[in-house]
């Protein structure tokens, strides 16, 4: 197939579905581990064991961003040598299989240290497979697409991370709603079901993918005997190509990684931990914002076919640099407990508890308030009362100032927050929607899978994955500023914007057959 004889629309639809469903399942597999991390850590990684703690750290941290770039290299190389279709079938089987097997590993009480070791090994396989999946899917769809719709068609794959998040959340909530917490957290309880569900999703996806043909461009290259015998060497030891790998990383993907992570993950964590918003509100704010912003992946993919990829992605980064600070300031300001105290809140319910201790007791007071504008919060107060020999209270020690938790903002603020998060997710769609087509068009067919996978996964896994850690580092170093954690994504996005603006070209290479 060349660029003037594109595949029929029905074939392209099947290619998009096969690629996107598989990638969505891989994201699903990846997310359920994160969402169930607390339960998993108690089952496989008990407290008070240094080795288990080390394995836990590696399992949770490693697969997230160490292993993905290596997966990109391993499977990218395979994809450029044996083909896109079989390689990303393999990544799907590895990812789904290891997820299913995590659900079958007996807990620490049953098999001791073998449990965390097995989970770590399976997590590493998950990370490797995820590193290989995206490049395959993006390349496969792009090589089927007509030149004037490449951005639009590949943007469907970009929606899969979001859809995977939705499905993971949906399956976990469905399981949780149908059993008690005790049943859910039991050794062979409900927390294992989402892992087992993975196998059905994978079988369906394998069935769809098996029916697909190899990418026509790659098939042609293979027939002509022009495939690369050493894609790694050609990608990274060929100076002309390595220059482009570096440019892709520092001029586009590095900024895309931090914008993606900040909008889709850091925002939720910030609303929960820094603003103290209650669990349900912070979750639904994210879900509504993501739901309404997801179609913009397709819009910006489509737009990039018309006006070029570069400025859409860089505008997303620039807007992130400009808007993040005021948006997060608004979150803080609108949930500021000092301001809430100023209003005359109405006491709705109060619970008092006294716990006896030696020589006295601890007094707990939990009070639920509602402000005149309809916001709600819980005030938790703890004091120690010591009793003297005569039985009278001797001294009061204030252990803590009243703490405000479970803040529930009023309807107006709720919509305002949803709108602000929506803006951040739209920025994600600007940087993320066109990037698959952008990367595909940067590299030649015979080393495309390898060359595009590595910068993509360094950008997403390393630069994006480090947002929470660097945020914590900055917050610890400069504790007086609660917004200091934003300096990392703002700084990286600004750097990437400068490099991208000056060094990247907006010209779309229509020809990906070479």
């Amino acid at each position: 197939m060349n660029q003037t004889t594109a595949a029929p629309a029905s074939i392209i639809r099947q290619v998009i579905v096969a690629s996107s469903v598989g990638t969505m399942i891989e994201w699903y597999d990846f997310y359920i581990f994160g969402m169930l991390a607390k339960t998993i850590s108690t089952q496989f990684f008990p407290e008070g064991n240094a080795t288990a703690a080390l394995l836990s750290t590696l399992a949770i941290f490693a697969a997230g961003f160490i292993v993905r770039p290596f997966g990109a290299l391993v499977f990218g190389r395979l994809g450029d040598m044996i083909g896109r279709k079989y390689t990303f079938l393999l990544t799907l089987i590895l990812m789904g299989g290891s997820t299913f097997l995590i659900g079958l590993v007996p807990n620490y009480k049953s098999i001791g240290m073998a449990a965390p070791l097995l989970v770590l090994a399976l997590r590493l396989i998950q990370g490797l497979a995820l590193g290989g999946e995206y490049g395959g899917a993006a390349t496969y769809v792009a090589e089927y697409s007509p030149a004037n719709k490449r951005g639009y068609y590949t943007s469907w794959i970009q929606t899969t991370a979001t859809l995977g998040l939705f499905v993971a959340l949906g399956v976990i909530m469905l399981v949780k709603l149908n059993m008690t917490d005790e049943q859910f957290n039991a050794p062979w309880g409900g927390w294992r079901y989402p892992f087992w569900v993975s196998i059905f999703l994978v079988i369906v996806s394998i069935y769809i993918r098996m029916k697909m043909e190899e990418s026509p461009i790659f098939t042609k290259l293979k027939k002509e005997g022009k495939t690369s015998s050493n894609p790694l060497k050609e990608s990274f030891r060929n100076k002309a190509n390595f220059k482009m790998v570096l440019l892709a990383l520092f001029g586009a993907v590095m900024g895309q990684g931090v914008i993606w992570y900040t909008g889709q993950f850091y925002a939720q964590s910030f609303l929960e931990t820094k603003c103290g918003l209650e669990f349900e509100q912070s979750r639904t704010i994210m879900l509504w914002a993501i739901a309404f912003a997801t179609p913009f992946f397709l819009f910006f993919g489509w737009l990039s076919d018309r006006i070029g990829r570069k400025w859409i992605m860089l505008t997303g980064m620039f807007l992130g640099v400009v808007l993040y600070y005021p948006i997060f300031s608004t979150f803080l300001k609108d949930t500021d407990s000092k301001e809430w105290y100023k209003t005359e809140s109405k006491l709705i319910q109060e619970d008092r508890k006294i716990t006896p201790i030696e020589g006295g007791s601890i007094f707990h007071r939990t009070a639920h308030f509602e402000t005149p504008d309809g916001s709600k919060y819980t005030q938790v107060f703890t004091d120690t009362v010591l009793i003297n020999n005569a039985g009278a209270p001797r001294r009061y020690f204030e252990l803590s100032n009243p703490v405000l938790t479970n803040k529930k903002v009023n309807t107006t603020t709720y919509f305002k927050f949803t709108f602000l998060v929506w803006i951040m997710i739209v920025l994600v769609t600007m940087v993320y929607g066109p990037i698959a087509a952008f990367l595909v068009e940067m590299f030649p067919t015979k080393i495309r899978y390898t060359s595009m996978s590595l910068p993509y996964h360094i950008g997403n896994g390393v630069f994006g994955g480090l947002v929470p850690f660097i945020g914590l580092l900055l917050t610890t170093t400069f504790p007086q500023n609660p917004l200091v954690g934003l300096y990392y994504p703002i700084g990286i996005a600004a750097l990437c914007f400068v490099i991208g603006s000056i060094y990247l070209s907006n010209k779309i290479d229509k020809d990906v057959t070479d």
Partner: protein
Amino acid sequence: MNTLKKLLGIIWLLLGPVVIYFLVQGAITHIDPAGKKDINNPVIWIIIITIFTPIAVGLMIFGYYAVKGEYQHLPENSNEL
């Protein structure tokens, strides 16, 4: 624009060692076997420094290429790669 590309290359070239210095400095300051936060965990610092050092070296190589004028013309087709 080409002069700007070259001049900025010097900044990218210097930024690599600066990043490595701050990471090592951060590790020395924050690693604490008694601490419970991620930031106190030596394993995480080892992982980050191991992963970030090659990326910082990549930034230096990018800067070097920029200084040498390698980005004055970007390939317009695969034959140039």
